[in-house]
């Protein structure tokens, strides 16, 4: 059985279910539980649901310490960029402790942060900065693109014994989707094939999955059959599903809202070039944001970002301008 709810509600549903299931799960952050009838506060009380001041270093650092002490904190950070204030805690404490202790301790922690709010939020609130974290061994990085995954990946993140950066896309917040009832877990490291096709593989992340699907739909009317893969988790990455698809199609287009040199697509492209080179019939094509800070002005924001047209153009390019070239 399933029910239709917005992406953001699906995330909350997972947190709520996990808090019911496990008393060690805490939820804290700025501006949560702002009214007395907040459902989290009502269900779990102010010991487990805690409002914090604007103190990211302490919020995240305390979560690390509490995790080391056996609790399972979920830290609400709202914007991925606010994690940057606490870079030491995120990058140099949370993911290092288990390893440095020779495996004697663990840090089960979820850092929940929105990203990619490209709707005029300008230079400091719009970044797609997840790849700053994929390069840190010990951190897991999750990027749900549907309401169901938002729920399932959050539940898995909370049960994971490692620090997980859970990045939800702001422009998906109110997107509705079918979400399975009750306990629902989406395993890490399992990509989803969102659309099957034989001519070209499109790997897209987060908000870009929808754009890639729309492009694939339009391409279908031209007789081009695109396979769309959503990795869902960047660390761990399901490279096998991508390689299998590329083996079939021989062509790869990567779509990522991050800037080129800070994207997940750059790493995936490198892996496919290394492990799937013999299947490739054309050079890999990346459709990313241009390497600039997101501008405030609406037309410039659009100029910098990947969109359907850019994805279609990339597909045409890897197909050599015509689907006939695949034959």
């Amino acid at each position: 059985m399933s029910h239709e709810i917005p992406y953001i509600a699906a995330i909350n549903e997972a947190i709520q279910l996990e808090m019911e299931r496990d008393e060690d799960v805490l939820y804290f952050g700025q501006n949560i539980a702002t009214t007395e009838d907040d459902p989290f506060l009502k269900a779990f009380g102010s010991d487990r649901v805690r409002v914090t001041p604007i103190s990211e270093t302490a919020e995240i650092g305390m979560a690390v310490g509490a995790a080391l002490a056996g609790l399972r904190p979920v830290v609400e950070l709202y914007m991925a960029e606010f994690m940057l204030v606490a870079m030491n805690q995120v990058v140099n404490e949370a993911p290092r402790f288990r390893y440095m202790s020779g495996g004697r301790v663990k840090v089960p922690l979820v850092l929940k942060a929105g990203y990619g709010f490209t709707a005029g939020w300008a230079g400091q609130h719009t970044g797609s900065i997840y790849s700053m974290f994929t390069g840190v061994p010990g951190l897991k990085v999750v990027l749900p693109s549907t309401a169901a995954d938002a729920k399932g990946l959050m539940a898995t993140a909370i049960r994971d014994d490692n620090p997980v950066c859970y990045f939800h896309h702001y422009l998906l917040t109110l997107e509705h989707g079918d979400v399975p009832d009750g306990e629902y877990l989406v395993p890490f490291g399992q990509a989803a094939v969102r659309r099957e096709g034989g001519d070209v593989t499109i790997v897209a992340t987060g908000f870009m999955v929808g754009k890639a699907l729309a492009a694939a739909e339009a391409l279908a009317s031209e007789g081009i059959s695109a396979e769309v893969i959503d990795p869902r988790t960047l660390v761990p990455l399901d490279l096998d599903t991508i390689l299998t698809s590329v083996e079939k199609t021989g062509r790869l287009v990567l779509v990522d809202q991050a800037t080129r040199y800070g994207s997940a697509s750059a790493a995936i492209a490198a892996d496919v070039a290394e492990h799937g080179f013999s299947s490739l019939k054309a050079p890999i094509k990346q459709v990313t944001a241009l390497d600039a800070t997101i501008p405030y002005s609406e037309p410039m924001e659009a100029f910098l970002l990947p969109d359907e047209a850019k994805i279609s153009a990339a597909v045409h390019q890897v197909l050599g301008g015509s689907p006939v070239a695949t034959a």
Partner: protein
Amino acid sequence: MERAVPTMDAELANRLLSTMWRIRAFEERVAQLKRTMQVHGLIHLSIGGEGVAAGVCGQLRNDDGVYSGHRAHGHAIAKGAPLTGMMAELMGRVDGLCHGLGGSMHVVDREHGMLGATGVVGGNLPMAAGDALAAKLGGTDRITVVFFGDGAVQAGHFHESVNLAALWQLPLIFVCENNGMAEFTSRAEHSPVDSVSDVVAPYGFKRATVEGSDVGAVWTGFGKFLKLARRGGGPFLLECRTHRRAGHYEGDAQEYRDELAEQEWAQRDPLARFQEQALADGLIDEPTAAEIETQARAAVEAAVEGARKSTFPTAELAAELVYAK
């Protein structure tokens, strides 16, 4: 709380009222433009904070630096930023102060000493200290002001900046607008220390708390520190108690708080309060007050018209500005 007796005369009253009306008219117009999507993005209005902006920036020179945060429109306007450049920026146009690339939260107008605004709470504090260091090293008597909300005080970088500014005796005046709220939660949920000026007590520098809706009190309180800072003193902290009239951002449903009764707002509205006082004290007459408002609204309208004439920035510009050449 310090009760300041403003040394007010007709000329100053006129000037302060004009600045406050320019800010109020600008903010009200921005709210309208946001509703019709002519201004896009994340907008924080400073209605209720006009007294602080006018009382502080009205005493600064163009070479004095101001850093602000996400709620920066009023500070920029009071510091002298042209309304058309401001409005064009908020409308994302190429003739905006930052060519439309910065927007509401990131206004820079160096000509008037508006050094910048940051959307990351408290990010401006150490940068302002850096400007004050440069002023000190440069041997000038220019000073730096940093505006921030009470929310920023709980950030580590607040304490780091205060400590260094005190240690190095920087010509920096911290101006905190304590509106008792950070986004949707109250100060009491953020800190056991109610008064921001108490937070810095151990550092031993001069600090004061004034009623931010009383522009005269802001003027006097800030003026004292400014005088000392010009002579090489510093740092100082001025806490201004204000009321955030609007939601945290434009579009905020504000379910987390009760609306202030109109009567109470009239008490805390820096503009209404000052205008009434100035009328009662005979510093200004009704027709003049009305004229000031009319002129402010006309200036804002002209700014909107001017902004509309400007085009959007080009792709070349967006690409070209990533690195300094």
